[in-house]
């Protein structure tokens, strides 16, 4: 069984989903606890994977490699390295906690939890697949549960939000599919195996497609596919809407894990397989990162709806990841992946906290609160911690990863980085300003009887807070996990990209 940890970690939630389908709908507790058990076991397996992982070896490990559809050379190929392991840890962690924050979901709980677990499996599958076809299948499998989770359990405009999310991401997937096929046919023998594609990177850069350089064409196709997921400006318009309408736990998953799949896709596929095109596109990518940072922060500043503000903060934070990636330096790359992990934990806290206040006040209008600090001090304290983590206060994990991104990007894109630091100021501004409006000043008399955060809610937040503080003080364990692989990736892209050239 030790040999199949990756298969297990991917399919345990599917088993959970099947069990839930078989439980009668009246047995609510059985349904919930099955979901808890499924994600909990997944989390334990993720830790077993961590235990087996050799951090000194930057290459792919725990490989599971079988022929799947031999006629088309499609393989069942899973493995992890320092790039995927942080995501493999993040996914069950956030999913496990999100189950608790969806404890009181109002209707059709059976459907909700089984779809939730399918979504979980799809996400995990994306992070462990090393065959592009398999990757794509998981990438798409995740779409449908998400569509239903937003569309059935969401807010007032849920249907519109769900279909917009669906059509946007599906459009991206379609381009991804085309890029994937073009990659597949650029090699003899045809293959979807990402390791083999990476080894053949120079050859791909030399072929032509529609009279243009195949590397560039494929890179652009994949770029749009991944950019919609990140989301990179101007492909971001689905995100605020989906976030606002989705139930709390789904927002948590959406921002905490789903967005990472976009940047993960760049690092897993585009960068290693198309190094020359990556170098060619590095500057535009950095500029897009800058736009994400500034635009996301400005938009967040302008929001009246708390959840929308947090949603735009995700756009802002993913900008740091893009900037760090584009720099193609060791510090930048490590910072980018570390930021992916940190944003996952921090934004999960942010959305859960928004959910807590929404459950009580039934609105999210920032100006509609006021003076809550006196009434709900524990809640105010946790919010302060999360908000500070969000604005990158030193000592909390977000600071380190953002700093690494900037340190990595500065020597390469000096001016862009200087402008990007402006984003930090804006970032602090929207968090602090919203905090001030919600918690300070005279208590809004409407909330005389506002209930304090309860134990269940608190206990979903505490683990996240611990991780945020721990990694803020002592980031070495996480950085050790990934630096080997990422440094190797940076070196590879640089050398292969320059030799292949255009």
């Amino acid at each position, binding site marked *: 069984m030790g040999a199949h940890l990756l298969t297990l970690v991917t399919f345990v939630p599917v088993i959970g989903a099947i069990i839930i389908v078989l439980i009668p709908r009246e047995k609510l507790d059985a349904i919930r606890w099955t979901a808890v058990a499924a994600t909990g076991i997944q989390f334990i397996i993720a830790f077993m994977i961590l235990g087996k992982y050799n951090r000194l070896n930057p290459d792919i490990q725990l490989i599971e490699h079988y022929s799947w559809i031999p006629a088309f050379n499609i393989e069942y190929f899973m493995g992890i390295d320092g790039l995927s392991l942080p995501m493999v840890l993040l996914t069950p962690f956030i999913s496990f906690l999100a189950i608790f924050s969806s404890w009181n979901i109002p209707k059709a709980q059976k459907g909700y939890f089984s779809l939730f677990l399918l979504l979980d499996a799809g996400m995990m599958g994306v992070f462990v697949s090393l065959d592009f076809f398999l990757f794509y299948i998981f990438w798409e499998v995740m779409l449908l549960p998400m569509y239903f989770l937003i569309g059935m359990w969401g807010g007032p405009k*849920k249907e519109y939000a769900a279909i917009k999310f669906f059509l946007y991401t599906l459009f991206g997937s379609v381009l991804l599919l085309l890029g994937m096929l073009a990659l597949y046919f650029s090699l003899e023998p045809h293959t979807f195996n990402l390791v083999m594609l990476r080894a053949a990177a120079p050859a791909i850069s030399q072929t032509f497609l529609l009279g243009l350089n195949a590397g560039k064409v494929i890179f652009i196709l994949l770029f749009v596919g991944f950019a919609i997921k990140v989301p990179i400006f101007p492909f971001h318009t689905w995100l605020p809407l989906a976030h606002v309408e989705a139930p709390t736990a789904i927002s948590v998953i959406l921002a905490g894990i789903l967005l990472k799949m976009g940047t993960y896709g760049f690092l897993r596929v585009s960068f290693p397989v198309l190094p020359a095109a990556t170098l060619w596109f590095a500057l535009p990518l950095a500029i897009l990162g800058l736009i994400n940072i500034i635009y996301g922060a400005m938009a967040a500043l302008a929001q009246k709806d708390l959840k929308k503000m947090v949603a735009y903060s995700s756009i802002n934070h993913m900008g740091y990841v893009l900037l760090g990636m584009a720099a193609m330096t060791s510090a930048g790359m490590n910072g980018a992946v570390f930021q992916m992990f940190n944003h996952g934990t921090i934004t999960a806290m942010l959305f859960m906290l928004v959910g807590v206040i929404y459950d009580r006040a039934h609105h999210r209008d920032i100006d509609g609160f006021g003076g809550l600090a006196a009434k709900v001090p524990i809640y105010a304290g946790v919010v302060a911690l999360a908000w500070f983590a969000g604005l990158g206060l030193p000592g909390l994990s977000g600071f380190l990863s953002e700093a690494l991104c900037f340190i990595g990007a500065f020597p390469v894109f000096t001016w862009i980085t200087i402008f990007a630091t402006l984003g930090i100021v804006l970032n602090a501004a929207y968090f602090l300003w919203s905090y001030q409006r919600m918690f300070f000043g005279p208590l809004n008399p409407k909330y005389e009887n506002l209930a304090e955060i309860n134990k269940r809610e608190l206990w979903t937040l505490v683990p996240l807070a611990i991780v945020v503080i721990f990694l803020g003080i002592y980031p070495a364990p996480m950085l050790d996990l990934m630096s080997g692989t990422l440094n190797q990736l940076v070196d590879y892209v640089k050398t292969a990209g320059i030799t292949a050239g255009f």
Partner: protein
Amino acid sequence: MDLTQLALSLKYFVPEMVLTGFILVAIIYDLFLKKDQSHRVGFVAILGLLVTLVTLYLQRGLPSTGLFSNMFALDSFASFFKWLVAIGAILVMWMSLDSKELMNRKVGEFYVLILVVVFGMFLLVSATHILSIYLALEMVSLMSYILAGYLKENSRSNEASIKYVIYGAFSSGVMLYGLSLLYGLTGTGYISGIQTQLMTGQASPVLLILIAVLILAGFGYKISAVPFHFWTPDVYEGAPTTITAFLSVAPKAAGFAVLIRFLNVAFTTGDPNSQAWLALPGLNWPVIIAALSALTMTVGNVLAIQQTNIKRMLAYSSIAHAGYMLMGVVVADQTGISAILYYTGVYMLMNLGAFFVAIQIKNLYDTETISDYAGLGFKAPWVGISMAVFMFALAGLPPTAGFVAKFYLFRTLVQFGDGFIWLAVFGLINGVVSLFYYMRVMKAMYFEKMEFAETKTVIPLHFSILMFVLVVPLLVGWMFGDPLSHWTNQAVHFFY
């Protein structure tokens, strides 16, 4: 043709003879039945098709042969389609047995007529002479006209039948004209002989293109490709729904079979079984087909968006799917044809499934309007989930076999090189457009409020079994070794 040769051919004609035998038995049996017992003919018909399948199975491994002076061919390509058509017919009869539309009337002939259509399609998919092609095509068409108008007192059904006849007569006339020109040009009716004659290169390209267009009109009508599709929505809406389901699958598959065989044998240079082939010099039919394909899928998808009736929506969606399948015809080499065969197989499962759900809804709630599906996902969970799977498969989303089928088609186009990548892009964009109307059914079933019927609707057991039979292969069939793709890869072998 001497008698020994006839006798030799009969040896290879067992499935068709069995079928004929059962047609006669069914007609005679029907004479002894009262009106309310007449559905029993359906059981005889199903039995007949099952026996036919057994004889088809026994035929496997026989070498490719020409039958009856090479008027027909026995090859793996034809036999694939025979399987498909027979299985489709069995499923349709199964569904017809408790269709409310067909209750309280004499339905003996109904099953007999379906058997005759199946027989016609058996001939059509193996025809290798323009005369046998035409006769088989007419045999299928004539029976379909009667079936479309089977609800005699229903004016929609009558309208469907009349429209079907008029369009059908027109397009087969046009096609006959094309065939006669071709015969005049080459002096032979055998499609392989036609190819040999055309290869001498004396025919004028203008005439060749005219011929190709005229003949494509006939085939295009059968597969409902734009601009020969106008009959489709009205006929699909008016015909009894089980017949609509049947028409959307079986004659379409048979139409593709004969189209592929004709183009690949008559209008190419060299051996149709070889990997490398070229269109005849002076007749660039792949471009014509590509244009037809792009037009067909776009028109089908765009018009499907505004439909409110499920049968009309599925009619336009079936037009769009014909467009997708034509993408494979453009690249009618081994992989292309294999991709089409795969697609027809998957398409049969998902499209029949969607129609069967529509029939069941019609039986239960007496409605065909999509907005009336509101809350269906809760009233009848298994029907809802099945419908969801069919819709996702039709839209080509993973992890259903619908995705794999589309994937194989796109793969063929991309592999072919730069020439037809534009068509692949077109197809992909169309895939996104099609989502819109498939998702609308989802939206109605799951997102829209209904008067929450506390009591769940009871679904007949045999219907649940049928859904299971259709859903499971769509969901997991391709994941474990993909048997269908093995079969289709082996099935691309023509006798010519």
